[in-house]
């Protein structure tokens, strides 16, 4: 390990517990949004995180961006503890692209100021900022003339390009993409995915790519982690995961991918009508109430992550 570079992101047993219903005058409820997650992303890799809404994938992204402190565990970025970095240093290393191209841009500031914000935070002067903003806008497929516009004057796809420009203007090593295309139409989604792939190659970026769309994840990621109620239940190289999944939840997720191939019908995902509630995690294997193959001991025995056939799985039956 001495000569090898450290992983771009390393997460060690990270948990985040939110207290819901804050305040002295309402009952507290504890939500274990992320509950003991560990993984590492090598420099230059693209790591996908998939799962249903409420599985904790967006919270994980926010933890890695330093927007929330983790309740326990360590996050290392480029070999250094995130908690030890000051905000400017962290910003130079890691940047986000969010889902909603409407709420991710301040509606009252010009594109120039939005894209130049990370530079301003580093104390870089106006002239230098303007030069780099224009250069970056052109790099993401926009024109210099757009610098003076407001977000409301751009289309959804153009806004997402602005968000990417803002994320890349400090030349960070790592970009965390939280559902970057799920608010976009398919034709625009393709444009944005192509742009991300191209920028990644050119700038040697490490991507953490969070999505509920498995087809998109398959297209762009090298390795995928499947999250369920705050835990990674399966993690494997993309090809491996998509060829034969080991966890019953991963299998259900894969079955529900509807490719545009007529005549295949709709598969039975076999999950029943219950739905996971992160404030009320079941004992034993947390997936057992929905699991089509659950047996008695899944109710009481908590599975630990194991390596099975070159992949990490958290299931008693795998």
């Amino acid at each position, binding site marked *: 390990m001495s000569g090898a570079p450290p992983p771009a992101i390393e997460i060690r047993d990270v948990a985040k517990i939110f207290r819901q219903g804050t305040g002295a005058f309402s009952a507290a409820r504890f939500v274990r949004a992320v509950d003991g997650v560990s993984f590492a992303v090598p420099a230059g890799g693209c790591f996908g995180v998939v799962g249903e809404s409420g599985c904790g994938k967006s919270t994980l992204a926010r933890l890695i961006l330093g927007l929330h402190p983790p309740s326990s565990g360590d996050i290392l970025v480029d070999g250094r503890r995130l908690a030890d970095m000051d905000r400017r240093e962290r910003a130079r290393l890691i940047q986000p692209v969010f889902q909603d191209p409407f709420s991710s841009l301040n509606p009252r500031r010009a594109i120039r100021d939005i894209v130049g914000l990370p530079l301003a935070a580093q104390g870089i002067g106006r002239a230098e900022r303007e030069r780099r903003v224009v250069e970056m806008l052109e790099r993401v497929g926009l024109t210099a003339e757009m610098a003076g516009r407001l977000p409301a004057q751009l289309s959804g796809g153009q806004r997402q390009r602005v968000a990417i420009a803002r994320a890349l203007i400090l030349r960070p090593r790592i970009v965390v993409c939280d559902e970057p295309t799920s608010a976009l139409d*398919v034709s625009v989604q*393709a444009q944005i995915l192509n742009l991300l792939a191209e920028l990644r190659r050119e700038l040697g970026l490490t991507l953490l790519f969070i999505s509920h769309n498995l087809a998109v994840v398959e297209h762009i990621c090298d390795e995928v982690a499947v999250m369920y109620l705050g835990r990674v239940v399966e993690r494997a190289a993309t090809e491996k995961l998509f060829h034969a999944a080991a966890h019953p939840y991963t299998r259900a997720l894969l079955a529900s991918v509807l*490719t545009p191939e*007529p005549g295949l019908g709709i598969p039975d995902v076999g999950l029943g009508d219950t739905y996971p509630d992160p404030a009320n995690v079941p004992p034993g294997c947390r997936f057992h109430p929905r699991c089509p193959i659950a047996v008695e001991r899944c109710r009481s025995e908590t599975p630990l992550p194991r390596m099975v056939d070159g992949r990490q799985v958290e299931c008693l039956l795998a």
Partner: protein
Amino acid sequence: MSGQAPHPAPILAVEGLRVRFGGGTQAVRGISLAVNRGETHCLVGESGCGKSVSALAVMNLLARGATRSADRLAFDGTDLLPLSERQMARLRGDKMAMIFQEPMTSLNPAYTVGSQMAEVRQRHRGGTRAAALDRAAELLAKVGITAPGLRLAQYPHQLSGGLRQRVMIAMALMCDPQLLIADEPTTALDVTVQAQILRLLLDLQRELGLAILLITHDLGIVARMAHRVSVMYAGRVVEHATAAELFAAPTHPYTHGLLDCVPVPGRTRRDVPLGSIPGTVPRITAGFTGCAFRERCAHAMPVCAGEVPLRERVPGHAYECFLPADWPQRSAA
């Protein structure tokens, strides 16, 4: 599909439907479609293409400020155009039902599931509330809800999104409709729940002989659900065909481009960029002529600014474009 017997008359026949908004925007510009009995007809297109507005126009549920007109709008042989709002209301929820995209907000938060389901039955069929509630419990069981009795007494906020959409479907079935219009019914749901809801719709259709007009932006859903497909772009149906035909031989350049944009596990290659359509959808106002796709089309010609012909590729598969039916093979060669 192609093997089935020819249908005597479509349950819903729409010809030359137009919808205008107050600001002069033309949301729907003369579309025609026919939904056959017992079939799923998908209306597919990207946001803003007018697909939801078309469905609302058929049901006469457009918001104030939008006006509809049509050459023909017939449901089960009845001309809907001259009907008053009161007469239309008698049909809605009874012979033709509709479900929506947002299950979280589509149910009234102040009333129980049972009360909201029972009132549809009582409104259209009369009868006692108890009988209507029995019917509601029966339908909840049919849409795969365990413990229907418990659910009837619950309020919408006590149910998950997937359960609410099942309730919406059960509510739509309260009066045995012949046509169900489903406007993006799974867009707000998780993928696993989406698959469950779509499978439920397929099962119900087979069992009840329901005709479904399914509005979606997702080509995967279209491929798996549709018998027939109409592709919309900027307020026009630019191509319509059976699902098998459309995916085997997409002929309008827009349909063609759209299919290239979708990543398919195991088929699209990771190191090759996805196909994409440059530019954005134009805003269509009065006086617009020609093909609305021409600005984004790689094959656009000067004639595209004029009246565009509707060409038939094979019977039942038509597209609105100057290009010959075999242009994809020619440009590949």
